[in-house]
């Protein structure tokens, strides 16, 4: 194995050890674990329930059948569940690490600061949302009578992973803003609230919102564009192919912003 490969394996081993310890800590708070599991499952079912309730009086939405929308919602839930395992530290980054000064400690370890932040406070229970998402997708695929080959299912897997990474990257970029502006909540909440936008057919929104969700806060790529392609709908299905590329681009942007932020980091003064 070449030297770089060795280095990567070694790094992976370290992160795995760190991750395992952090996971153990979270599991040791059994009550919190169970409460998180219940609340996540409840929340996932609630948002699903809302979609179902919404369709009761209206029948269909701008030419989209209920099950078609559910497919997109399911995809988005799967990605979101994966992202939520690491989301706490990204949302609380400004508060926990910058204002309360935990970032000093992170910098003193000879491994990536970003990876350390993502490993800390890892949540398993939120994967309940992913599980619900799997159920929703399976249900709508059956209801729509779609006959998917292994290729389509592989595309679903790729879509879900890319979607989760896209969330991670977008919120990492927002978290890295905390290096520049000290603030307890940061600017993530309104972006977080934009997530549901990405779960609905994009064409119902006026073009500025569509453009926003395509290129600025690219949540349209999480589930909508790939979902359109999977459903064989015409129109913007072509953009599905761009999803992994957009993810990659945002990954690079996130890495750049993070580095810039770390360089700017001012510690807690005195």
């Amino acid at each position, binding site marked *: 194995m070449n030297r770089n490969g060795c280095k990567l394996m070694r790094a992976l081993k370290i992160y795995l050890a760190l991750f395992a310890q952090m996971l153990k800590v979270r599991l040791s*708070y059994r*009550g*919190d674990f*169970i*409460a*998180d599991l*219940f*609340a*996540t499952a*409840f*929340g996932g079912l*609630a*948002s699903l*329930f*809302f979609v179902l*309730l*919404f369709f*009761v*009086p*209206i029948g269909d*939405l*701008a*030419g989209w059948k209920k099950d078609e929308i559910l497919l997109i919602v399911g995809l988005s839930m799967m990605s979101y569940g994966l992202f939520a395992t690491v989301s706490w530290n990204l949302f609380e980054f400004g508060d926990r690490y910058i204002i309360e000064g935990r970032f000093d400690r992170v910098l003193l370890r000879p491994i990536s600061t970003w990876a350390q932040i993502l490993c800390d406070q890892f949540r398993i229970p939120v994967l309940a949302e992913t599980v619900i998402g799997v159920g929703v997708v399976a249900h709508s695929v059956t209801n729509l009578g779609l006959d998917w080959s292994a290729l389509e299912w592989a595309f679903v897997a790729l879509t879900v992973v890319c979607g989760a990474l896209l969330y991670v990257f977008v919120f990492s970029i927002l978290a890295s803003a905390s290096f520049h*502006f000290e*603030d*307890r*909540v*940061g*600017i993530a*909440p*309104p972006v977080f*609230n*934009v997530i*549901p*936008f990405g779960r*609905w*057919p994009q064409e*119902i*929104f*006026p073009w500025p*919102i569509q453009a926003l969700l395509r290129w600025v806060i690219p949540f349209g790529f999480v589930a909508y564009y790939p979902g359109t392609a999977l459903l064989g709908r015409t129109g913007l299905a072509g953009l599905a192919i761009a999803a992994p590329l957009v993810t990659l681009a945002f990954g690079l942007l996130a890495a750049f912003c993070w580095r810039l932020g770390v360089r700017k980091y001012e510690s807690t003064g005195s």
Partner: protein
Amino acid sequence: MNPVRALHLPAYAGFFSGQFRKMLAYRTRYVTGIISYLVYVTTYYYLWRAVFLHRAPGAQIAGFTLDQIVTYVAISWIARSAYFNNVDRELAEQVQNGSIAVALSRPVSLQGTVVAGALGEGLFRFCFFTLPIGAVIFLLFPVAPPPSLLHAIAFVLSCALSQVILTHVNFLVGMCAFPLKNIDGVMRMKHYLIEILSGLLLPISLFPDWLQALSSWLPFQAIAFVPSSIWLGHARGGIGWLGDDPTQLIVHGLAVQAAWVAALALLCAFIWRRAARSLSVQGG
């Protein structure tokens, strides 16, 4: 006697100025909070537009025209910006760090203090949060005014009652911190329950019958559905307890809210008394 003196206005002015400065210190939260509300209303506005897109002009869904449902959604969110509070989190923190025991030594009831504080905060939020949010939403979206001045007044009163009801619900959730160490899970579940069952996301009239029936036995509909229906001047869809007559609606709506205030206040008093007793036995 000087009426200004009698009302202790300078004290309130001081409170307001203090709150205002606190809010300015968290200016990012202030600005992002306003943006969040715009995001919500925008999403639902376009969703409903899409629903009505292929229907005849003036078409109704469960008794709502597009204009009415847009007004409903916008008003529900605007009202929420005023009545929303974090009483549950604040109480849980007091329970966790033990400072709740101080409440026992005060000559005033904890419940009264919490409700008064929440109303004060609500008035503050109304001035500095709801008014700008409302102004922007009125500019951007076709929100219809209430049918009469009476409805407007009743709406404001109804929002105040929503605040009191939500405060009591949050009080109960906060009390969960006595048996449970961490109430994050309970708070999240309450959040989802209220979002859906209060009629914030969707008017209760659009629910299937069984859920409408269930909702009418729960306090949540009194938080969002009642004030928004009063603003609209109708609560179509045959919910028996509100009625469709614009004036009757006001009376019924406020009565339903008042009944829930009384019921929840009693429940909270009962639970707090039990919690306080165990607190004084265990010594906090």
